């Protein structure tokens, strides 16, 4: 289970997170919604230990991320997959090499790596693209390779940063299916997005981040029936 306890983070004078507290239960997809620049990606990066919060703690399986040594953090990251907003594929490597990199780090032999690469590409329906470079792929394909790279490590958790942003409706739906399928494989998902169609499709629980705090958290049905005017305005997309 991932637990966020009072996270605060400022960049210069701008306070992005102002006491974010949230539980991410196992076996479900939790979605954080909120406008652009409210700190959704920063929250994910705090969980992964890529950004140090000014105050507050992140607990993953009982371990406090901010108190881990570099080696312990490396071990923890083995349990968490991360899908970046723009995929963040290594552009000098082929698709197969991108997926294999994390597996090689964990000491898999060549045959096991090849099997795992093939298997994870099949999950995202991109078999046959092993030898392509990221520049040869569309935006949607790059994002799916990003998911394959995360899935290949068989993580306990996957953090998705704006997985459907910039994609056409059909490719977005494919991404949503992938996130649901990954959850059905037993992986806990934490998705940040401002795409409400996607949020309602993949989210078992939805939390709204507003002005640096969690404004409301609840099941999909609870959020759809919310009377909170700020949440209502956001999910209805009213100006």
């Amino acid at each position, binding site marked *: 289970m991932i637990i966020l306890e009072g996270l605060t983070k400022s960049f210069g004078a701008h306070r992005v997170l102002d006491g974010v507290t949230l539980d991410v239960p196992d076996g479900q997809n939790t979605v954080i919604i909120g406008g652009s620049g409210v700190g959704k990606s920063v929250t994910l*990066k705090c969980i*992964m*230990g*890529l950004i140090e919060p000014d105050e507050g703690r992140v607990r993953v399986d009982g371990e406090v991320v901010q108190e881990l040594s*570099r080696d312990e953090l*490396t*071990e923890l*990251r*083995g349990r*968490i*997959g*991360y899908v*970046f*907003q*723009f995929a*963040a*594929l*290594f*552009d000098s490597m082929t698709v197969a090499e991108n997926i294999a*990199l*994390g597996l090689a*780090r*964990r000491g898999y032999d060549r045959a096991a790596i090849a099997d795992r690469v093939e298997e994870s590409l099949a999950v995202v329906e991109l078999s046959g693209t092993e030898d392509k470079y990221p520049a040869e792929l569309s935006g949607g394909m790059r994002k799916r390779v990003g998911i394959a*790279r995360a899935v290949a*490590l068989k993580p306990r958790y996957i953090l998705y940063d704006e997985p459907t942003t910039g994609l056409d409706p059909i490719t977005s739906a494919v991404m949503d299916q992938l996130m649901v399928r990954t959850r059905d494989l037993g992986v806990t998902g934490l998705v940040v997005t401002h795409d409400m169609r996607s949020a309602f499709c993949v989210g078992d629980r939805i939390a709204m981040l507003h002005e640096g705090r969690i404004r409301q958290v609840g099941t999909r049905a609870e959020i759809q029936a919310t009377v909170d005017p700020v949440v209502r305005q956001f999910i209805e997309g009213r100006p």
Partner: protein
Amino acid sequence: MASRVHARDGFVAHVGRTTLETARALADVRTWSPLLVAQMRRLGVDSVPIALFIAVFTGIVLSLLSSYIFTGAVPFYFVGALVGKTVMMELGPVLTGMALAGRVGASIAAELGTMKVTEQVDALETLAYNPRAYLVVPRVLAATLMFPVITAFAMAVGVTSGWITSVNLLDLSTPEFFKGLRLFYRFKDIWFGLVKSASFGAAVALMGCVRGLDAKSGAEGVGQSTTRAVVLGCEAILVLDAFWALVLL
């Protein structure tokens, strides 16, 4: 003015921290060792043509310049002494270092800067790699090992071009040129130049890595980091040049 001094102090501390973290990352041999040879080829072997081009013309200019200075005052065979000493101890290492600061420093800063702004460096971390071990150590080691090799070639080519120029354009025979070359030669001349160039390599690569990993988002940010890496690499070469002259001479 005060803020600029403060910023410079902060940068020096930042470089110090990065150097320490890079030294610690040396222990992660499993990560950096498979990448070292490729970096040695990229940063070293591929830089040989530009280094040799500079060395050829340095030798030519030095022999012509020394003949101009010595005419009527000093025996002509001193041309060989001046070309040899200057190429081996100063111009070989420094001019090669400067040229590679442009080529290698810019290349490292641009590559790492692009990786930084496209979140590839964060991606490395999420895959449980230490970016210092994966990106910085192989580049700094490769430059430290390859700068002296390239400089050795540049020394040989610089002296050779000085000799050929002296024989063909000046009134100097081959035995006279080599008499002058041997006159003040000490083995220290060579290793002094090579030790300096190893330190130049480390500094140029480190500045490239530090600036690349500090790149701010966007093409402009990467461009600024690249420019700063080259300028800082050249500055570091001049400071180290003076340092080694004080310490070793």
